[in-house]
């Protein structure tokens, strides 16, 4: 549906030229919810704005459904208003001098994709009703709550019946409960409408819950693309591992690697761990042995393989409601495990935990240059 090919975008910051996107390529299938995930400054919003036509890439191509939208080489650039897409803004971008109805109707009346005048009213009311805000039609947008404005923004986009919907951090200005509520609503709505969606967020929980596929970005590059499970369980490198969910990363070196399984030597011992598809770890290379605090079995069962167990002292204990997080310390290495809140362990007590190799991962360190860029 959407192809992005070696896209490079820059912007001026004072006298400096900053490269926001550095040769990004990706493909997005029809009907997918595709999430761009990354820390602020990673280029995800710039990529979205390139798709919208709000930024002009200096290199590379963008096509949607085979139509060329932008090609730096041949100086092709379709203006934003002529692209078959719609966008929901982080600020909602409500036009304050118009009512809810007018905000949704204005592009249908005055835009390139205008429809017959007598159809406007029905179209607007249909989409407002779909989003459960039909009763707000005559209100001024400035009197609405954040959640309501967000829905009007979405209504305005959906009313255009776009081929592609772009969403720039649409939930980030809402309070936490509303965010969680809207995530599942949005996801099912996108699937019901079978709408190709590109969704930008820095919130990994939102990305995992909403995305069919996720692209994790860092410093203008796409680091990994995959479905949520793959991204979560098989990160390709340190950056993805750190950014998506909590993960213990214990420095070590590769002792042996073959076919998706690595043996990693660390200060705590030598462990077996998985590697992501497409990752190769040369023998002797520095790497991290990683596992998620929740994946460790606490305490280790009697019959667990001693090769994949770690003995440590409890140095910290944090109660988080549904679970307990223990800070552990062993041979100068600090890491965390989490367990059910009923566990009875005091600070200073000894503990043995089991890290099943299937739930452990070996990752390469992020390239120095990339993390320094930020």
């Amino acid at each position, binding site marked *: 549906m959407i192809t992005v090919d070696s896209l490079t975008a820059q912007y001026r910051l004072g006298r400096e030229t900053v490269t926001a996107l550095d040769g990004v390529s990706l493909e997005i299938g029809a009907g997918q919810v595709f999430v761009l995930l990354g820390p602020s400054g990673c280029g995800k919003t710039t990529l979205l704005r390139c798709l919208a036509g709000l930024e002009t890439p200096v290199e590379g191509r963008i096509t949607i459904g085979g139509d060329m939208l932008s090609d730096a080489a041949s100086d092709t650039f379709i203006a934003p208003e002529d692209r078959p897409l719609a966008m929901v803004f982080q600020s909602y971008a409500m036009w304050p001098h118009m009512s809810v109805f007018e905000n949704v109707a204005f592009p249908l009346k005055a835009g390139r994709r205008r429809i017959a005048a007598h159809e406007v009213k029905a179209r607007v009311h249909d989409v407002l009703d779909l989003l459960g805000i039909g009763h707000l039609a005559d209100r001024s947008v400035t009197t609405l709550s954040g959640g309501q404005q967000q829905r009007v923004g979405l209504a305005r986009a959906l009313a255009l019946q776009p081929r592609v919907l*772009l969403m720039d951090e649409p939930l980030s200005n809402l309070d936490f409960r509303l965010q969680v509520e809207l995530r599942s609503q949005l996801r099912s709505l996108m699937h019901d409408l079978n709408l190709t969606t590109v969704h930008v967020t820095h919130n990994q929980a939102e990305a995992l819950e909403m995305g069919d596929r996720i692209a994790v970005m860092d410093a203008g590059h796409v680091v990994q693309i995959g479905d949520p499970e793959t991204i979560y369980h098989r990160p390709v490198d340190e950056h993805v591992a750190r950014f998506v969910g909590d993960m213990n990363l214990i420095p070590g070196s590769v002792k042996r690697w073959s076919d998706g399984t690595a043996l990693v030597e660390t200060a705590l011992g030598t462990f077996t761990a998985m590697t992501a598809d497409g990752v190769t770890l040369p023998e002797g290379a520095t790497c991290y042995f990683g596992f998620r605090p929740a994946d460790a079995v606490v305490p280790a069962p009697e019959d667990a393989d001693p090769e994949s167990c770690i003995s440590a002292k409890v140095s910290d204990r944090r109660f988080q409601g549904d679970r307990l997080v223990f800070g552990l310390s062993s041979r100068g290495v600090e890491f965390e495990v989490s367990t059910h809140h009923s566990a009875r362990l005091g600070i200073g007590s000894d503990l043995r935990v089991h890290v099943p190799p299937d739930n452990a991962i070996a990752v390469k360190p992020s390239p120095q240059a990339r993390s320094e860029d930020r």
Partner: protein
Amino acid sequence: MTRPSPIWIVFTGALIGLTFVVLSLAGNVIGSFTSEARFDTFTFDAYRRLLFDPGLPATLMRTLGLGFGTITVTLVFALPFAWLLARTDFRWKTGLFTLMAAKLAIPGFITAMAYVWLFNPSAGLINELAGRTSYTGDALFDVYQLRWLCLLQGLVLVPGAAFMLIPALRNLDGSLEEAARVAGVPAMTTFRRIVLPLLAPGVLAVGVFYFVVAVEMFDFVAIIAPPGDVLVLTIYEALNAVDGLPDYGLAGAAGVLLFALSAGAILFYVRFLRQARKFAVLGGKRRDPGLVRLGKWHRAATAWVLVWMVLTVGLPVLTLIWVALVPFIQPPSMTAMDSVSLFGFLDGLAYLGEPLTNTVIVMAGTVIMALTFATCLTWVVTRSRSRLAPYADALVFLAPAVPAIVTATAFQVMGIAVYEWLPLYGTLWLIMVAMGTRMLAYCTRTMNAAALQIHPELEEAAWVAGLSRWRTFTGVFLPLMAPALFYAALMVGMLAARDLTLPLIMNSAGTPLVSVLIFDLQTNGETASAAAVALYMIVVLVILALTARKLTGMAEPGLESRS
């Protein structure tokens, strides 16, 4: 145990400042109820004469015409300029900024003088060049027209208006435009239906402010008196009656009418602002609007800037230089070239002595007075939480609506009223007090803005750490305000030096200022000397203006910045 704090000094300063502001209007009102400068009578005579004058409706219409005509011309230039500077990739931004800052330093009456020399019907240089003066039949141009006043006033007000419009354009949330574009709305429609309505309050604010400025401006009317009165001229003529005493009653009554017109405009604007509040969008992260690429329109933009530059700077300054070089006004020709000499410049220098001293004294006095009281007022309004604060704020907000000519009349009347006890009438001191009062309002407005930028916690930290309010004021507030104070001092000094209205109205023999010297020289037909002194003045003021601009750095913050 509390020790008495010297902070009362600040409150006293603020009160004195406010008293002067009140006097600048009250003196005029008191004057309007007197007859023949006698203060022991109370009469409506002046109002009767003013209101039953059959010429009044026409005068009012002309005054309104002057106001609307001027702001139309101003906006035709200021809106595109502000847009070019705030929202586009215009290549000559720095140049345009510098040009506009320098233009602020060319006094309006000098521009007016140059245009009289160029376009007066009997001997204007352009008319002579075209061979069509009123002596040869009909003149090509006749500068003594209301529309010329509108054009010239409008042109000189462009920099101030553009500087006021730039923040409004910069603060416009860029995502509102982007949302329209992405929703398929073409650029022009977006501009018409989204950008313009949202800019309306800002543009209206500038319009109202400059309407007030335009109807009270005396620089141009003093030099280019149009046929038929406008209100400022009514006041001036009442004070400079050909036969007999100044008519303070009539001047006062006309001043009250002029003030009512200004205050009405400002109140209308305040009401509109309250309405416009509902346009404010809640929450959400705003986005800096991106810069528009001008592309092929770049030439058109440059041309429009050049038109303004030629009309307001090029033409007047060239005219001044030419007129200063020749003994009497004549178009450039071979014979004229023979008579070129530096006589005007030398002669002007000879005249400068006393007026220059006087001007420097008035500048210094005005700066000291305006800054002292404005600092106190700013502190009271933004920091003290005193019950006085909202009243002080409101008064200072309305003070610019008091026309200069009204302030001048008011202090003249007060000067006469207290002459027996305090003989300030006819001295530099009274001019200084009047000018200081006028600048006080201007200073307080800019300094309040600066004070609000300084986080109150900086002072609270000192206060909580055991420093008295007075020590906090002198040790934290004043040093933090220093850049704003310095900038205000330069601007006030510049505005004081170039002002013609107050000295012209209040000047009695014996205390000429440079601005009045230029006016007198040109009235007496000593054009070469008048032009030479005007050029001296412009050079000094341009240096002041450019220094002030360099100091602030406010002129062009992050032209290409992008979050």
